């Protein structure tokens, strides 16, 4: 007997009904034929039965649809792979005391947005004392020294500053994803650190709303944080990683 919770379906208002809603636009004029086309697409997407509950024209050449329907698919939870947090969440006080004990000096964090990305929202949410989601940013932690390089930092500049600041960890943020800029920039960054510093390189952490935490290896970084990450999670991770590092070194 398998776990009854291994397989699940979307829940509308009854267990197992499989109900979802979706919306999309087709490049065809509004009318019955358009509704039929939307119906066909929904069926092909696995929605059966599918109800086109709303459609309206956008200009002469496009039609927008809202579709409700039941999907046939099952989710197999055993096949779902995600990065589970393997370290405990610490309070700022716990972060400070642990770091003091492990390092006996401040942990240096250098952060910025690399490439042409000018969106500092992410890095600022993590680093600025203001913080995010009610948690104070890393600048608030007494045992962390934070150097926020801001926007559009070049990779050589980041490496240079990481070296002069003797950074323990480098945090980079990437928001713009056009043509996979976030992936390419991060790979360029990790390659530069490997080349410049080899095994002595700082801990590399990448963050951004469109990153998948499973991509760490592909990106050449130690950790990837995605949408909704709070400063406390990052700080806790840094402590955990430092402990691991010390453990290996000892």
């Amino acid at each position, binding site marked *: 007997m398998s776990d009854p919770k291994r397989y699940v379906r979307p829940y509308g208002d009854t267990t197992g009904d499989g109900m979802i809603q979706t919306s999309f636009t087709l490049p065809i004029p509004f009318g019955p034929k358009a509704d039929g086309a939307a119906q066909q697409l929904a069926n092909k997407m696995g929605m059966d039965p599918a109800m086109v509950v709303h459609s309206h024209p956008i200009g002469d050449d496009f039609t927008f649809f809202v579709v409700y329907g039941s999907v046939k698919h099952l989710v197999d939870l055993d096949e779902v792979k995600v990065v589970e947090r393997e370290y405990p969440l610490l309070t700022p006080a716990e972060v400070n005391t642990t770091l003091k004990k492990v390092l006996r000096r401040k942990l240096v964090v250098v952060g910025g947005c690399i490439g042409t*990305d000018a969106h500092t929202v992410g890095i600022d949410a993590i680093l600025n004392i203001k913080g995010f989601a009610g948690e104070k940013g890393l600048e608030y932690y007494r045992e962390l020294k934070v150097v926020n390089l801001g926007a559009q930092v070049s990779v050589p500049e980041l490496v240079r500053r990481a070296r002069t600041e003797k950074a323990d960890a480098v945090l980079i943020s990437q928001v713009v994803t056009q043509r996979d800029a976030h992936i390419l920039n991060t790979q360029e960054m990790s390659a530069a650190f490997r080349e410049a510093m080899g095994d002595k390189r700082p801990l590399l952490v990448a963050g951004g709303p469109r990153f998948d935490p499973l991509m760490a290896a592909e990106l050449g970084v130690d950790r990837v944080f995605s949408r909704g990450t709070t400063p406390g999670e990052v700080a806790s991770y840094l402590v955990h990683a430092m402990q691991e590092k010390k453990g290996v070194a000892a």
Partner: protein
Amino acid sequence: MALLDLDPKVVATARALAARAAEPVVSIAKAHTTVAVERATLRLAGITGADSTHRAGDVPWVNRVIDTVREQCGLEHGVVLPAFHALRENNLGTLTELAEATAAGQIQFKIPAGKELTAAKKAATSAVAKGIRTVDRNRAQRDKLITKLGDPAQRPWIYLIVATGDIDEDVVQAQNAARAGADIIAVIRSTGQSLLDYVPEGATHHGFAGTYATQENFRIMRAALDDVSKEVGRYVRLTNYASGLCMPEIAVLAGLQRLDMMLNDSMYGILFRDINPIRTFVDQRFSRQVHARAGIIINTGEDNYLTTADAVEAAHTVTVSQLLNEHFAHEAGLPDHLLGLGHAFEINPKVPDSFRLELAHALLARELFPDAPLKWMPPTKHMTGDVFNGYLLDGFFNLAGVLTGQSILLVGMMTEAVVTPFLSDRDLALQNVRYVLNAAGSLAEDFRPAPDGLIVKRAHQVLGEAVDLLERIVDDGLLNAIADGTFGLMKRPADQGKGADGVVEKADGYFNPASEMLEAAR
């Protein structure tokens, strides 16, 4: 009608303090020039095109000339004297020919004296005057088209963004947006353009999260909007961005191609792009003088502060920045009706009474700047990817906009922070605006906040905090305040930041016919 009962004495104090805070910075701006100001001047004098054979890719001719002049005789006297002297000495017809000869290493620049100086001044003045005349003609043409086609039927004007990276796609999207009700089209620039120390050339098709601002792209889009303006029976305005390292040049190109609005903030580049403060203040002054001449409405960037700082705690920094932007703009010759001072709906929706606080802040801006076409910016920071919630928030943003008499409404997208907007996102967003305008467009008529209610009290409090902060800025100096992280929590020392090496102190014999004409016109 005044609803907040602001004390005129406090308002006058706030303005006087802003003027005092700005004064030393204006003096610095007058005493310096920058590579960008000099390039803008040569562009007004008619230089165009780029060196496509350079190994660094297309380098605009104007950059080649400025860089060489700077190497050979410095920019302390301005670029036009050595440039127009060299033109005459080498019997060259145009500045572009001069640039080609410069690139070939055939030109030796020097500062002329005596009769040669008089001749160079005369030639430069006549060339720059031609550029200014084009700007003037464009302004007259805009006025003519507005008379003929008309302004939007309603306030606020509806402002929509396109950002595909490809100017040809932008044209399709912009024309469709205008047909769907947009009064203003803004073409967002490619990420990173603000830090290019040159303006790219020609029509472009490969931007990142936006389309490069180039003279040719400006021309293409303005022509497309002229076409659609006729079709929809109202003059559709075009917006771009005079920010970053090329503020003055982009301002000139906007004037030459009849753009109608430009993002132009006195401190945005410093705070959010880490551009050197002195460079920014020199560049923004010249660029605003050009905008004033071109009749272009500037849009300031106060909304940005609230994306980094908390929208309640930092509300007064917006007011302070608006007052500073107003002063810098007036000083550069921009009248109130061209001041699109910015502010935004960025309070965390989980804060109790957040909507009332938004109304207080929006009304404060409205009553402090009654004649300015205020620009009202939609929520971005608290758009989480929950598009349903985001749609609701945008509805409240629209309602606050009509209720407080905002002039320019940037249409919020429920997919903010998720993807670049789908065609349907834009359509739904416009439906949201239309519904609110239709249902509550005249609600301001019935809206009387209680004299001792939260809205009025909050507005007074924010104004009070703004006055306190302005006092500290006057004591400390604006440049020090910026260095200390007063705005948007970013610390920007005056001697640091990008583009600092492009700032040049003017010599006694500095000559710039564009500056003289623009100053004289005020």
